[in-house]
């Protein structure tokens, strides 16, 4: 079996296994063992099997497509870029790049065809897909295992101290162990479907499925009003993004007539082009060009004009075909492409909690901690980044700039808020937002590989951090860091694995030699930023670069603040401290596994070309390897080729700078909380306005409340008033009129209709009384009547025959 056939099979199975588990739990969940414990085994087995399949697929991919290094080809950057970019390109293009491997695209099943729209269940498999599969299933498996420990209370009746029941005491409710795993399974299915999806329609479906799972899981403790509010918030905020995504989808579909990513061989010799090859066609050297159909769509007015003037249809078509390059140069259709890109990115903003839609993610921490780890750190929010990466070839430079700016703003805002948050999970949530911002930022600056590399690494260490914090919460029963402290002795495994996570996220390592995973990816991002600064002609890039660097320091600071507050120092709440204990093995084991991955996932395999970055690079969209420069709308845009950032001139300073900043953050945090040289309270008082600003999360919630929520409420109040005063009155009047008419009608009914009917009924009654005399109740007289009737009928028919029909011919021969 070739890889083309094997991979869809393996990944398809890995994708559908959680669905099977979901279905099984939906139907039989409550009956699976005591309290639904079997549901956990089923779900874990499913995702475990999916993990094995994904790892086999990964192995198969690596065997079938070994990483090969080639000389970078001269890309469009060299040809088009003017000014400083050229110099770099000439001087620095020394490194080798990874050969791009053709993706495997196809359809499993066609759902429906409406005209030219084909809704299919397709796949688009490249190195990114395979790596994502392995990562998602691995992390999900760890989290499933961990959930056995974390959710074990749900096996029995649960007492929820945070909800007051009707009788005033804490709410008691039956456990929902199986339901938790049911949602986890559905979520895994949706996420894997999103990753393997071969077209945008499918992506959208799974996108929404992921959203609904998130909704379910955030609202898992649905008796708590905070949880339901958070679930609603997440759902609604995501809808805002999805609206943009729908706009993008429609723009693409309307202009291109297809939603498939890659080229799909529908029949031998017939290949339908996907979006990627339409936008970056091989004839055009994979350069981003506006497709013909899109140009035509945009230049509809001209097309109609030609049709009106041209003598025949064929002439018109020929004229149009001749004019299309001209129109393209005039910029027709480019806007459409930009809108499509912005729309898709809008969806990603919602899902990946980017500014300005980042507000839902911290609230989503109301869900159980494994959910936070799985969804709101490792996978679902990564979906946005993943989609940006997947859809990368279609983004125009302008869109890329927007992405970079949004990412930059997000990473900065989130990092600042994380500085002052005290809820351990919220710190991590803001850190997640910030890290996602980093990924977007990298992608926007052309750092495709850097962004996705960070995505994978982040999934490992953020899952680790969340699970660790879950372990802490599990042990202490509180989320508030000020009530913790000194837990290092009580729970060493959790503490040290979390330390590994903190180091990883901060980018610790020996500069230029070796480091934890975060070191590599964050380095790559910052190097790309530096590269863009140096390649770009605009100060915007400088600002972006500086902000990102600064936020790196903040990252180190808040992470170590978290760690110090939690694990070091004197116990601040003795009750909590006494209560604390190390978590059970089933929770610790996933922590260790994830810690190992957080440490090593960035390391290359010695003596080979094999490393996560190189494997990811195999999936790099064709035509983006050489970067881009200059947009049609804004001329100074640039996204330098990524291999340029590996040059020592950029890489070394970026690396050192990043390390220095992280170290600075770490030292400051140590000074504040580790050795307590600086009293945090004093600083807080000194910068009270800033503190309040950050403490209130930049007043985003209040801002949205004032700008969107309250006006909406007020408008709806007005509308309700109109409804009450205008429409209701009108309807009431109509009803009154109806009553009058019906009174009249009633009179007519009684006087005329009823009397007629009564008469008829009386007549029928009398006839019945007369007829009943014939029903003697004697069987024999009935038979007699039947016989007499038969004879009579015969006689009548024959007489009729004789006298009426006799003249028209006789029966018989």
């Amino acid at each position: 079996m070739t890889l083309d056939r094997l991979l869809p099979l393996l990944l398809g199975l890995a994708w559908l296994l959680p669905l099977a588990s979901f279905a099984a739990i939906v139907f039989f969940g409550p009956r699976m063992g005591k309290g639904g414990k079997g549901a956990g085994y089923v779900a874990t087995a499913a995702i475990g099997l999916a993990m094995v399949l994904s790892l086999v697929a990964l192995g198969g991919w690596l065997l079938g497509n070994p990483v090969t290094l080639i000389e970078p080809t001269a890309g469009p950057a060299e040809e088009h870029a003017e000014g400083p970019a050229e110099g770099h390109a000439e001087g620095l293009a020394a490194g080798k790049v990874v050969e791009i491997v053709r993706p495997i695209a196809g359809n499993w099943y066609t759902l429906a065809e409406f005209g030219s729209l084909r809704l299919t269940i397709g796949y688009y498999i490249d190195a990114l897909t395979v790596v994502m599969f392995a990562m998602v299933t691995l992390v999900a498996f760890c989290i499933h295992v961990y959930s056995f420990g974390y959710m074990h209370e749900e096996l029995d009746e649960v007492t929820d101290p945070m909800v007051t029941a009707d009788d005033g005491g804490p709410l008691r409710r039956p456990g929902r162990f199986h339901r938790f795993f049911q949602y986890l399974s559905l979520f895994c299915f949706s996420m894997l479907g999103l990753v393997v999806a071969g077209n945008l329609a499918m992506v959208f479906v799974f996108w929404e499925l992921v959203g609904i799972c998130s909704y379910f899981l955030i609202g898992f403790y649905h008796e708590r009003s905070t949880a339901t509010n958070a679930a609603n918030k997440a759902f609604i905020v995501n809808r805002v993004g999805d609206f943009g995504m729908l706009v993008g989808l429609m723009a693409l579909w309307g202009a291109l007539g297809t939603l498939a990513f890659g080229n799909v061989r529908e029949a031998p010799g017939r290949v339908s082009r996907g979006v990627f090859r339409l936008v970056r066609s091989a004839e055009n050297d994979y350069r981003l060009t506006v497709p013909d159909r899109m140009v035509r769509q945009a230049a509809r007015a001209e097309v109609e004009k030609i049709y009106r003037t041209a003598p025949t249809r064929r002439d018109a078509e020929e004229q149009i075909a001749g004019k299309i390059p001209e129109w393209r140069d005039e910029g027709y259709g480019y806007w459409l492409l930009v809108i499509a890109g912005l729309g898709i990115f809008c969806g990603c903003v919602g899902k990946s909690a980017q500014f300005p839609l980042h507000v839902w993610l911290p609230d989503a921490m109301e869900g159980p901690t494994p959910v936070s780890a799985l969804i709101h750190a490792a996978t679902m929010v990564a979906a946005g980044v993943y989609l940006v990466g997947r859809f990368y070839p279609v983004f125009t430079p302008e869109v890329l700039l927007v992405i970079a700016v949004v990412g930059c703003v997000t990473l900065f805002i989130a990092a600042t808020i994380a500085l002052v948050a005290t809820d351990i999970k919220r710190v991590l949530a803001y850190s997640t937002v910030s890290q996602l911002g980093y990924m977007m930022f990298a992608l926007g600056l052309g750092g495709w590989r850097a962004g996705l590399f960070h995505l994978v690494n982040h999934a490992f260490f953020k899952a680790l951090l969340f699970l660790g914090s879950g372990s802490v919460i599990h042990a202490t029963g509180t989320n508030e860091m000020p009530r913790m402290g000194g837990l290092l002795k009580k729970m060493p495994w959790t503490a040290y694995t979390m330390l590994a996570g903190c180091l990883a996220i901060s980018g610790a390592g020996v500069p230029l030699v070796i480091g934890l995973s975060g070191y590599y990816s964050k380095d790559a991002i910052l190097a790309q930023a530096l590269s863009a600064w140096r390649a770009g002609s605009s100060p915007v890039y400088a600002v972006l670069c500086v902000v990102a660097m600064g936020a790196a320091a903040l990252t180190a600071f808040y992470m170590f603040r978290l760690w110090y507050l939690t694990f070091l120092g004197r116990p601040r709440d003795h009750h909590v401290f006494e209560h604390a204990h190390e978590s059970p093995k089933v929770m610790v084991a996933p922590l260790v596994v994830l810690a190992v991955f957080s440490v090593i996932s960035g390391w290359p395999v010695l003596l080979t070309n094999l490393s996560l970055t190189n494997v990811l690079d195999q999936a790099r969209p064709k035509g983006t390897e050489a970067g881009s420069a200059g947009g049609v709308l804004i001329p100074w845009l640039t996204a330098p080729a990524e291999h340029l950032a590996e040059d020592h001139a950029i890489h070394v300073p970026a690396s050192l700078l990043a390390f220095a900043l992280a170290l600075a953050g770490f030292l400051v945090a140590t000074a504040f909380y580790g050795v307590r040289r600086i009293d945090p309270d004093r600083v807080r008082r000194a910068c009270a306005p800033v503190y309040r600003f950050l403490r209130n999360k930049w007043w985003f919630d209040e801002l949205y409340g004032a700008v969107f929520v309250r006006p909406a409420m007020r408008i709806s109040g007005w509308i309700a008033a109109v409804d009450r005063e205008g429409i209701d009155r009108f309807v009431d009047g109509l009803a009154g009129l109806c009553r009058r008419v019906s009174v009249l009608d009633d009179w007519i009914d009684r006087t005329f209709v009823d009397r007629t009917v009564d008469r008829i009924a009386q007549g029928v009654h009398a006839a019945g009384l007369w007829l009943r005399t014939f029903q003697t109740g004697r069987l024999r007289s009935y038979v007699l009547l039947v016989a007499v009737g038969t004879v009579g009928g015969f006689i009548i028919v024959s007489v009729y025959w004789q006298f009426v029909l006799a003249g028209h011919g006789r029966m018989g021969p």
Partner: protein
Amino acid sequence: MSVAIQWHSLFFLLMALAACGAALAVVLSANVVRMAFWLVVSLGAVAGLFFLAGADLVGTLQLMVYVGGTLVLLVFGVMLTARQPFVDMRTAPTQWLVAALVGASLLAVLWQAALSVDRWAGRGQTLADRQAQAEPTAAPLGLALVGVRVDKPDQADPRLRDGMAGYLLPFEVISVHLVVVLIGAAHLARAKRRPTSPEPPQTPRTPE
């Protein structure tokens, strides 16, 4: 012309006379058991008529189902209810008269109808013709019941020829009908506990 005596006709006459005579006897006998006996004779003679008409399967079935099954059941019923007052139940002479009148008029109509078509007289055939036409009917009938008509190969419509014209559906319907009827009859006729009190009978107990 003693040569041309048609044996077939002779036997027909015998059987027809037996059937009609026995039927008349059924009408005229007052004793219900004798009625049953004469009915047996009449139906047996009808079975003979079926054989004479070349319908051997129908004749056998008549013997088996009708005479052997239905009538035994009937006689069984007669015996179950054979208390002396019911064995000889006389009918009023006026009712006899009315019945006879109606019957006679019906017979007149039917008789006239039977004689009115010349083709039905069956003239102009020889015994040899008939014997040449004698053929087994069991297999074609069975095939027709399962939906294959072998006797009508000249059917124009190929869909009908390919078996749609058979009697599969009526066969199934009648089979199910028979099962339902038998179960229903068993349920109806099952022995019930007589209520000892003057109260109306209780709800029938469910059969075990």
